[in-house]
């Protein structure tokens, strides 16, 4: 038992080990595959977004640069094709303003400023005629540079705007043509640059970090943006603030005076990646479940089988050892039985001879005759006891040689018939065979069955005594065989029927039978796994039924 427990423990441990190993072997590639796929996919997507952002930023930079240059050129053409005197007149200026607005949109108003910085003519929504700009920063700049585009400022109108101004020297006297640019127009360019719907921002900063163009009221406030040195082209960067990852593209424009910044919230843009992530995760979970379940099922089955085989092997070995030991005991027993049986026979004969001699006249008259006679009877009785012990020993010894063979019961009964036919004929008893021809063969010990049949038929012959019929009947039954031995003897009352299988019970005269025949037969049949039953009616006869299952042999037990 403990061996079986040890075996079970060993295999349970081994099974756990195998399960864990298979688990990891299946898991590692799955994790690697899932992880790398997700990593490369997300990196690719991120790279794509970055490139897209850079492209858009470059596009917007070029557009705004072009826009500003275009407006400055337009103004220059106007200034150089008309004289100060002509444009000084308000109706002429209005005409020119409307004309230029057709070609160059985004002009808000237009004005002529003389050498002293006074706005001599103005068209537009504000009342700015006669305003003095002599001290304005932009006036100083344009006087120096001929063409000037300002930063955003409030000016007299107290509204954020920027201007383009052109200086012309006419007859040695300089004058200035100036327009205001609608910053909403530029803001519009910027906002169309945004990729997604949310999480993004686009603005323009001056070199000092002051908001120039922006979608909200940040204009003219100071930004905390770290101003980079001037560079050519576009720069992309990944920035982290407030737990967010932001992609940021920058470009210098307007002769490197303004810095355009477009920011894109990466997580917002990577939204669809969450879906990919979830799908990968789901596949991972499902695969893991399948791996776990199949691993457990497979190892369970395999190990149950392995354990069963090992257990069978163990049992087989134990059985082999046991049957080896039994064979040895059997040999010893049969040796002893043979050695004791012969002296026992001599003792029995000597006692019998003494008993015979005691019947002589002269000894019979001896006063000790009865004691002597009883002694010889006692010796005989105890020799019989010894014989039974030896018989049992021999029976045990034979148990090991139980031949388990396919046995044709009809053939065995044929032999029984041959053995006993002479004896039966002698008593004028017909021994009849009523065999079913195609009887299934039975795995059993034919010799032991033969002993049973001979016992029963002998009993039947003795029961009939003279003139009668004994029928040996075979019949297939439940894959096995039913043997019935019926005689036309006197039959037995129920009281006797109950006792006939008891050891030492006999109806024969003293000295005619041992009373062991039927009990031995009974135990043989039971040991072989069959059943021996009797059916009898006084005056009609007796039937013995021997039921034999398909596999019919005794199991060796100690």
């Amino acid at each position, binding site marked *: 038992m403990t061996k079986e427990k040890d075996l079970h423990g060993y295999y349970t441990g081994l099974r756990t080990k195998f399960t864990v190993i298979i688990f990891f072997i299946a898991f590692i590639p799955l994790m690697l595959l899932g992880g790398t796929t997700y990593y490369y996919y997300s990196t690719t997507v991120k790279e794509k977004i970055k490139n897209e952002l850079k492209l858009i930023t470059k596009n917007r930079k070029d557009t705004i640069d072009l826009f500003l240059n275009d407006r400055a050129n337009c103004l220059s053409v106007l200034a150089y094709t008309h004289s100060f005197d002509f444009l000084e007149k308000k109706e002429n200026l209005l005409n020119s303003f409307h004309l230029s607005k057709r070609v160059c949109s985004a002009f808000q108003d237009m004005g002529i400023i003389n050498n002293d910085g006074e706005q001599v003519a103005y068209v537009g929504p504000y009342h700015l005629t006669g305003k003095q700009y002599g001290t304005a920063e932009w006036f100083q700049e344009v006087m120096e540079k001929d063409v000037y585009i300002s930063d955003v400022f409030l000016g007299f109108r107290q509204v954020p705007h920027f201007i383009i101004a052109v200086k012309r020297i006419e007859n040695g006297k300089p004058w200035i043509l100036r327009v205001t640019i609608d910053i909403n127009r530029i803001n519009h360019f910027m906002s169309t640059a945004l990729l997604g719907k949310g999480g993004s921002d686009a603005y323009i900063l001056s070199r000092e970090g002051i908001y120039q163009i922006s979608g909200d009221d940040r204009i003219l406030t100071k930004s905390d943006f770290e101003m980079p040195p001037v560079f050519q082209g576009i720069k992309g960067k990944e920035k982290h603030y407030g737990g967010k990852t932001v992609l940021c593209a920058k470009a210098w424009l307007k002769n490197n005076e303004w810095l355009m910044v477009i920011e894109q919230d990466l997580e917002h843009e990577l939204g669809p990646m969450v879906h990919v992530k979830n799908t990968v995760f789901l596949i991972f979970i499902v695969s893991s479940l399948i791996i776990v379940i199949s691993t457990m099922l497979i190892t369970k089955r395999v190990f149950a089988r392995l354990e069963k085989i090992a257990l069978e092997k163990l049992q087989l070995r134990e059985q082999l050892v046991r049957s080896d030991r039994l064979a040895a005991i059997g040999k010893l027993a049969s040796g002893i039985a043979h050695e004791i049986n012969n002296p026992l026979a001599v003792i029995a004969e000597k006692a019998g001879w003494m008993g015979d001699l005691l019947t002589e006249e002269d000894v019979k008259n001896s006063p000790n005759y009865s004691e002597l006679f009883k002694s010889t009877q006692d010796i005989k009785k105890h*020799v019989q006891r010894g014989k039974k012990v030896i018989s049992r020993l021999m029976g045990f010894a034979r148990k090991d040689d139980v031949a388990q063979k396919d046995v044709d019961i009809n053939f065995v009964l044929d032999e029984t018939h041959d053995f006993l036919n002479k004896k039966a004929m002698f008593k004028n008893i017909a021994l009849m065979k009523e065999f079913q021809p195609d009887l299934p063969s039975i795995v059993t010990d034919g010799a032991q069955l033969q*002993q049973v049949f001979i016992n029963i038929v002998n009993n039947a012959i003795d029961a009939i005594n003279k003139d009668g019929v004994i029928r040996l009947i075979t019949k297939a039954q439940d894959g096995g065989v039913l043997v019935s031995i019926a005689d036309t003897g006197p039959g037995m009352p129920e009281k006797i029927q109950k006792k006939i299988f008891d050891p030492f019970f006999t109806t024969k005269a003293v000295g005619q039978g041992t009373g062991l025949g039927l009990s031995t037969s009974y135990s043989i049949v039971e040991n072989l796994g069959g059943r021996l039953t009797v059916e009898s009616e006084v005056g009609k006869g007796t039937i013995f039924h021997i039921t034999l299952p398909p596999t019919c042999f005794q199991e060796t037990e100690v």
Partner: protein
Amino acid sequence: MLLVDDEDDFRTTLANRLKLRKIDITDVASGSEAIELVRQKSFDVAIIDVKMPGIDGIETLKQIKQLQPDIEIVMLTGHASIESGMEAMKLGAYDYVMKPCDIDELLIKTGEAYQNKLLKEKEK
């Protein structure tokens, strides 16, 4: 009648007991002696022990049957088993008795054997 057994004590005692019961019995100690005797003289019934040194009971049975086919034979088996008895019966023995045997059982069986022999002779 002929009695063949190698165990002297057993054989002489059994022979004495049978003689006491008015049976004409000759006893010999081995198979070869028995065969020799059957060559010279005919017997009705022979009682032969299965287990003997030299020529064993089964061999003796075969040779005696060859010499005198109408002889009836009852085997004595010391094996306390029926296998050797059955083997002998297959070879033509009339019956077998297990050792240690009851004298009455032996008398019944030899009697039957003798009757059987007489029956056969009558049929002829």
